[in-house]
């Protein structure tokens, strides 16, 4: 458990050292979400309708953008080797890295999303559901993404291959997440969508760190 | 047997594009795939044969030089 916290601390420290990193991931989210009104035109009714989808896709893409860096630096400079040889169980260290990734790339999105939602003219209750769906969904994105990042580590054409592997797996999260927000703004029940998201999350929390660890061990061979 | 003529058969009750488009695509791909696989297999065999020939030549050279 200590080792997990140590990894989280280390990754947060590294991110803080590259001060811009935390902020820019947020900025990316903001900019992507703002591109759509530009590309699509400023009709408010239309914007309101596409808002949940656009915000969720933006969250998904900005998570994706950070994924290749998740293990690449540690792999290149040999730190990953050292982790694999450390007396602490590798899965624990990896879980720590995933947690840190969520804290850096997921949590800020959750906090910022309501603000962007305002831009798209969403109302209070809908904004709340938006945040809630992102709170359940972004850890899922980090967990699934970590598996993809581990599988494509050190592989030729890694970055794009990663997107290819991970995006299909993100689709259910996207559907349930955006679905919940849409259901809310259409006045329908949201429990169904949210509980499915929660179930997926529970599954991933137990399963993903192991799969990621296995994939990393293979990458190190 | 409920087709009165060949033309009717090919017309598929007005759905010709869709029915033949589907069956045609299936036929095309299902025929093409085995051929591609066959070609791959033959290529592997050819490469192996070439390699063995080269090896045999190596051995001959060894004998001669000795």
């Amino acid at each position, binding site marked *: 458990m*200590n*080792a997990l916290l*140590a*990894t989280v*601390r*280390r990754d947060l*420290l*590294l991110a803080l*050292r*590259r001060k811009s990193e935390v902020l820019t991931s947020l900025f990316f989210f903001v900019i992507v979400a703002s591109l759509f009104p530009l590309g699509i035109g400023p009709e408010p009714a239309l914007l309101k309708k596409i808002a949940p989808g656009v915000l969720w896709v933006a969250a998904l893409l900005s998570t994706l953008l950070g994924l290749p860096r998740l293990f690449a*630096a540690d792999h*290149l*400079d*040999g*730190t990953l*080797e*050292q*982790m*694999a*040889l*450390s*007396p*602490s169980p590798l899965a624990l*260290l990896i879980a720590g890295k995933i947690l840190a990734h969520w804290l850096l790339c997921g949590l800020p999105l959750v906090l910022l999303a309501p603000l962007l939602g305002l831009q798209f003219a969403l109302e209070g209750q809908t904004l709340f559901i938006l945040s809630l769906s992102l709170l359940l969904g972004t850890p899922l994105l980090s967990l699934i993404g970590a598996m993809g990042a581990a599988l494509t580590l050190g592989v030729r054409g890694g970055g794009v291959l990663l997107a290819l592997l991970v995006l299909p797996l993100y689709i259910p999260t996207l559907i349930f997440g955006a679905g919940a927000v849409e259901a809310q703004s259409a006045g329908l029940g949201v429990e169904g969508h949210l509980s499915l998201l929660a179930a997926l999350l529970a599954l991933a929390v137990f399963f993903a760190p192991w799969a990621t660890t296995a994939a990393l061990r293979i990458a*190190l*061979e | 047997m409920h087709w009165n003529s060949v033309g009717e058969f090919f017309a598929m009750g007005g759905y010709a594009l869709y029915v033949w488009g589907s069956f045609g695509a299936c036929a095309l791909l299902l025929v093409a795939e085995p051929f591609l696989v066959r070609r791959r297999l033959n290529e592997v065999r050819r490469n192996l044969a070439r390699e063995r020939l080269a090896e045999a030549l190596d051995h001959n050279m060894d004998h001669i030089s000795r």
Partner: protein
Amino acid sequence: MPAMLKVSRLACSRGERQLFADVSFSLAAGEWLHVQGENGAGKTSLLRLLVGLSPADAGEIYWRGVAASEADFHRDLLYLGHHAAVKDDLTPLENLCLSAALDGIHLHEEAALAALVRLGLRGREALPVRVLSAGQKRRVLLARLLTRPAALWVLDEAFNALDSGAVQLLGALVGEHLARGGLAVLTSHQPLPLPAGKRLML
């Protein structure tokens, strides 16, 4: 003396090339092994196999009489490879403390500082590693030898990029480690400032 590390009939192939087929050796406490061979002979491959980073084609590795995969081998092992394994954005001090934390060791700042000073990095503790010279980066990595207790040191070309003072220093460190009853497996193309050890020619 009983052998602590026993390796028997290891084999390794890369691509279609058989690098080595029948490597066996054993090391007792206080002994060290110098793995030698030309560029590409398979020294790095052997070391990675030994520490368990890649699987062997055949052969066994025993640590204290137990198969290494089952023994609590990682706790006794310190492997430093070709890679720098230090974070460019962190300072040497942070690098050292954090890698100790990942190993589950609590390292006091004074101890870390002392290790860095011993390695001649006085005055560089607080610079980001990025700006250090090639040799200084290696020294940051080598400081782990002083902060992480381990019975078996496996060092791959650790003497690279070091100036002659640092080579002497590293030799002395390994010497002390052996005197304490430690074991070491080293590769190097240079002659080493160490008492004669076992040799393995690949």
